[in-house]
């Protein structure tokens, strides 16, 4: 059988692929797009060395951002630290560009925006919006400082529209893909769960068939004797036999696909043994039950065996989901306190005796 892929792990794999795609996009832009423009316009800058230094700072910010995002969704402090460094480097590069030509030779605006997309990719969308707005305002601020003309403003708006538009589109696209990956993984997971349920149902069906065969040897002869008049319903022993067979029939009817999980089936097995001794046993479950590890199950079934062995004629076993675990309880006419196995393996056992009825509860806690 193949190992189960938890939903989170599967959708996580898709998310990682999207992250790597974005890293390639951002690094590619910075190397080819921004780097190419920097080299082409090298003679236009007042200080090419300063622009080159800022380009390196931005490259370091992108590297740091890539490491952060590959390690998982970064917290707001590291994400914003990288974003602010990118913003500062791009503003400094813009401010050091020759007045009047700033937009034409600006390589940094795009790179800073992409760096923001990278580190804020998996954070709230509003954060990216704030960052891109701050980046645009900083660039506009530099332009206003240099003296803004109408043609400059038109250029600014054109660059804003295409560069920021592309950045928002990529961020939104990744977000949509994340959602789709989550859904695909959930669908695969539920398909797996359905297959597992079908297998459990088949196991239960086989067990039920076995019990039905057993009924042919126990309940059917009893009914035949009652019908023929050879068994007297007024006789105490016949009544006990009837009670036991009725309990067994009820369990057979109640045992449904809703209660997979080995603890329930181990308790059913203990009940079968007690029934052969003439004890009527009911088993009921409430809620979707957690899986209990084998050592804890052993403590619980040992308690069940001790109590069912001491029961005179009736016992009720219930399994209920409780916060962070399961409560397995026993109510039986034992007449006296029962020596129960020691608690352990995360199982706590309590008991109380009231008028010959024993109540005991084994509570397993997953924490």
């Amino acid at each position, binding site marked *: 059988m193949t190992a189960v892929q938890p939903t989170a792990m599967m959708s996580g794999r898709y998310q990682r692929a999207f992250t790597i795609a974005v890293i390639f996009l951002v690094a590619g832009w910075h190397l080819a797009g921004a780097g190419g423009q920097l080299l082409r316009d090298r003679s236009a800058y007042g200080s090419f060395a300063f622009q080159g230094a800022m380009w390196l700072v931005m490259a370091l910010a992108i590297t740091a951002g890539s490491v952060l995002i590959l390690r998982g969704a970064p917290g707001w402090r590291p994400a914003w630290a990288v974003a602010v460094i990118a913003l500062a480097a791009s503003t400094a590069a813009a401010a050091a560009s020759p007045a009047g030509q700033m937009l034409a030779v600006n390589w940094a605006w795009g790179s800073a925006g992409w760096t923001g997309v990278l580190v804020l990719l998996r954070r709230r969308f509003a954060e990216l919006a704030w960052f891109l707005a701050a980046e645009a305002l900083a660039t506009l601020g530099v332009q206003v400082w240099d003296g803004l003309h109408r043609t400059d403003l038109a250029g600014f708006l054109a660059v804003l529209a295409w560069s920021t538009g592309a950045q928002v589109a990529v961020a939104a696209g990744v977000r949509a893909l994340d959602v789709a990956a989550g859904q695909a993984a959930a669908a695969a997971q539920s398909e797996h769960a359905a297959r597992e349920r079908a297998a459990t149902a088949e196991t239960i069906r086989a067990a039920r068939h076995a019990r039905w065969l057993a009924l042919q040897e126990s309940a059917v002869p009893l009914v035949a004797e009652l019908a023929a008049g050879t068994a007297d319903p007024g006789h105490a022993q016949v009544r006990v036999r009837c009670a036991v067979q009725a309990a067994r029939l009820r369990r057979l*009817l109640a045992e449904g696909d809703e209660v997979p999980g080995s603890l329930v089936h181990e308790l059913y097995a203990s009940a079968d043994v007690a029934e052969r001794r003439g004890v009527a046993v009911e088993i009921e479950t409430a809620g979707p039950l957690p899986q209990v590890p084998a050592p804890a199950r052993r403590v619980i079934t040992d308690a069940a065996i001790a109590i069912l062995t001491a029961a005179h004629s009736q016992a009720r076993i219930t399994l209920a*989901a409780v916060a962070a675990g399961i409560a397995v309880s026993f109510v039986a006419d034992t007449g006296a306190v029962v020596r129960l196995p020691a608690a352990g393996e995360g199982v706590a056992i309590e008991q109380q005796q009231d008028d010959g009825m024993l109540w005991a509860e084994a509570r397993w806690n997953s924490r």
Partner: protein
Amino acid sequence: MEQPVTVAIIEDHPVVAEGVASWIRSDPGQRVRLVQTAGDLTGLRAVSRPSADVVILDLELSGELVTAQIPGLVAAGYRVVAFSGHSDPAIVMETLDNGAHAYVSKEEGRDYLVKAVLAAAADRPYVTRSQARAMLADQRPARPALSEQERQALLLWFQGMSKASVGRRMSISENTVRQYISRARAKYAATGRTAPSKDALLARAIEDGVIKPGEIVPYKSFARVAADRPSLDAPGR
């Protein structure tokens, strides 16, 4: 002496109907009087006035689930006690949501059916173990918020303890145990679809001091319950 509560049995298996009738007859106080037995619901639909205070309704008639018929019965003025071999919590919840006063599984009938009928006639909750089980198992997002004490009382009752033993276990009186369980049930009456029977249960719970109007506010305004209350005294209820 009070008038006995009148009851109709809707059950398609004559042997089960006979058994229910014998439980009613063997009640020492003779507090319930059987007025009608039928294999389906047509007889109840035909009359304009409710012919009994309480209907004991088998949830499966001629192989079909009849939970969807409960709102109609409730609207006609009947109080419904569901009596069924289906102990699936989802069916129990649907039965209560549709306005049944109580749910009694066939295994519990001998011990609880007459008690549940009497409680229903007085618009008081009666929570059987199978009903407690369904409430504990409830995972629906719209389920009411139960307090820790209410959950614990429901859990111990479901586990099979007597209410006196539950009280000893929780170091409270048996009466307080009943209060907790009734309050949990009343919270359910305040959720889901509306039904006159649920309003009546709630109004009585408030009157009895089981629940305070403030405790049910998130799901239904007290104003609505109060507005429905005068109809309790109207004839036919």
